[in-house]
């Protein structure tokens, strides 16, 4: 491991020891939302959300447009605060710490909780500078270490072979699918604990999409992933758990095969079978 992760796991272990009450689910929960509500001004966008996400799992969030999927995952790294007039209520626990607390450092949170956006958004810099950006802002200056991080991240994002000979080229010269994988590499370079992805493949062609889906399966061994997607097949293909959002509520959250084959709620069934509205 190139950036020290020992510290986080140490904290994690300590927290586990403190948990005296018998926990209902597995002990490796990363995120727990408890009665989480969010308003954009008057608009009550998220209503009493209760969800939990686990280590080494891919969780999918599905639901019709405007139901609050992006709002929810942007709440997990508090990016949603960039919108003026946002109000929240309830708790979001990240490794047992309420991230909505005043004393939570958002810089620290966002280092642990990485994000990949819907549209590829590389910096107008070289491929190398894009991927080394995160380590650099966190104070890593040694060129050798940066080289290692860049190569490791690009390999993890399954794009090393395509770009290894032109690391100094501007990232804007790459195709959309390549750019998105550069963005994934950039996120992985800071070795986050969990990666949030908001429709990461919606701007991509099927081949790039498959590449990124394969990549997610690889990443699952080391990371946890929460992915928002409009693509039912994608959710069914890649995820372990699926949450169905509708009008700001979580209607159903369960194992992916249950959501797709045997949903408990009529609305979930209608949505996943495409009979919605």
């Amino acid at each position: 491991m190139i950036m020290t992760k020992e510290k986080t796991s140490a904290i994690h272990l300590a927290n586990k020891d403190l948990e005296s009450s018998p926990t209902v689910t597995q002990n490796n929960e990363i995120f727990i939302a408890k009665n989480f509500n969010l308003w954009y001004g008057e608009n009550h966008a998220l209503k009493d959300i209760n969800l939990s996400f686990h280590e080494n799992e891919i969780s999918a969030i599905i639901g019709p447009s405007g139901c609050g999927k992006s709002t929810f995952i942007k709440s997990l790294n508090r990016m949603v605060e960039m919108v003026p007039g946002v109000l929240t209520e309830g708790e979001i626990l990240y490794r047992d710490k309420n991230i909505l607390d005043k004393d939570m450092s958002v810089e620290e949170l966002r280092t642990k909780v990485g994000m990949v956006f819907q549209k590829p958004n590389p910096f107008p810099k070289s491929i190398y500078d894009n991927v080394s950006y995160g380590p650099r802002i966190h104070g890593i200056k040694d060129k050798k270490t940066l080289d290692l991080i860049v190569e490791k991240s690009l390999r993890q994002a399954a794009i090393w072979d395509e770009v290894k000979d032109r690391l100094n080229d501007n990232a804007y010269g790459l195709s959309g699918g390549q750019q998105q994988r550069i963005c994934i590499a950039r996120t992985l370079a800071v070795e986050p604990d969990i990666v949030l992805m908001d429709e990461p493949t919606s701007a991509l062609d099927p081949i790039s999409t498959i590449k990124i889906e394969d990549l997610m399966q690889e990443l699952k061994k080391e990371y946890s992933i929460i992915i928002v997607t409009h693509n039912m097949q994608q959710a069914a293909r890649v995820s372990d758990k699926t949450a169905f959002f509708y009008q700001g509520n979580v209607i159903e959250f369960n194992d992916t095969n249950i959501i797709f084959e045997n949903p408990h709620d009529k609305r979930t069934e209608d949505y996943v079978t495409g009979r919605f509205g």
Partner: protein
Amino acid sequence: MLMDAEVIDKKRNPRIMKNNLMKMLFLFSTLIGLVILIVLLSTTLLDGWRYLTLDFFTNFSSSRPSRAGVKGAIIGTLWLMAFTTPIAIFLSVGTALYLEEYAPKNKFTKFVETNIANLAGVPSVVFGLLGLTIFVRQFGLGNSVLAASLTLALMIMPVIVVASQEALRTVPVAVREASIGMGASKWQTVYRIILPAAIPGIITGIILAISRAIGETAPLVVIGIPVALLATPSSPLDSFQALPMQIYNWVKMPQAEFQNLTAAGIIVLLALLMMMNLVAIVIRNKYSKRY
């Protein structure tokens, strides 16, 4: 068929003719400006180029045209710009960064923004009066390089602020989000992502503003910059001469030869301007990034 082919046929020619007419009209406007500019420049060049001798550059101002030169004025103007530029950049880019990146988006910020933009329209004489009252008298700086630099810096600040704000706004939200989303602080995002992307626009604003400052006469007259001085400044607290003042002074002289000196002075001023624009283009090309 709802679209009547005959009507379309009938209307086609008038449409195309109108288009051509407008094209000619716009071309005419461009040409008028161009022609007048060329006439002005060429008469200036014709009048002045023979006076651009070595003596012209090494002599101080004089009441005798054959002895008059721009040494004091050029060096004074360089001193003036050497202090005006950094002061203006510091004040203006700082203000723009604060307003765009840090300030809460509320009515007060909006109010400040609008007022700064309006300051761009205030006549330069008014800034001269402000400089006279505050810097020359209140601060006791006299008619020094520093007093004039502060005055000019304040005068051009609104232009740079507005241009910088516009440049900052062109940096896409998605790129900012990418940086913030990785745990970068606001300043890291500004310094490493936003500023490099906005630099070409900011530089353009700075150069435009400095170009205005370098030729500005009115505030210098109000502050009381001397027209005849036989020394160059050796500190920012010294008095100095400036090119536009020198030109202004020569224009008023009765002897015909001074008119040629005026032209020569204008050529020097234009050359300075062109050099600055060249630097701006180089910097802009170096930093130009595409999105």
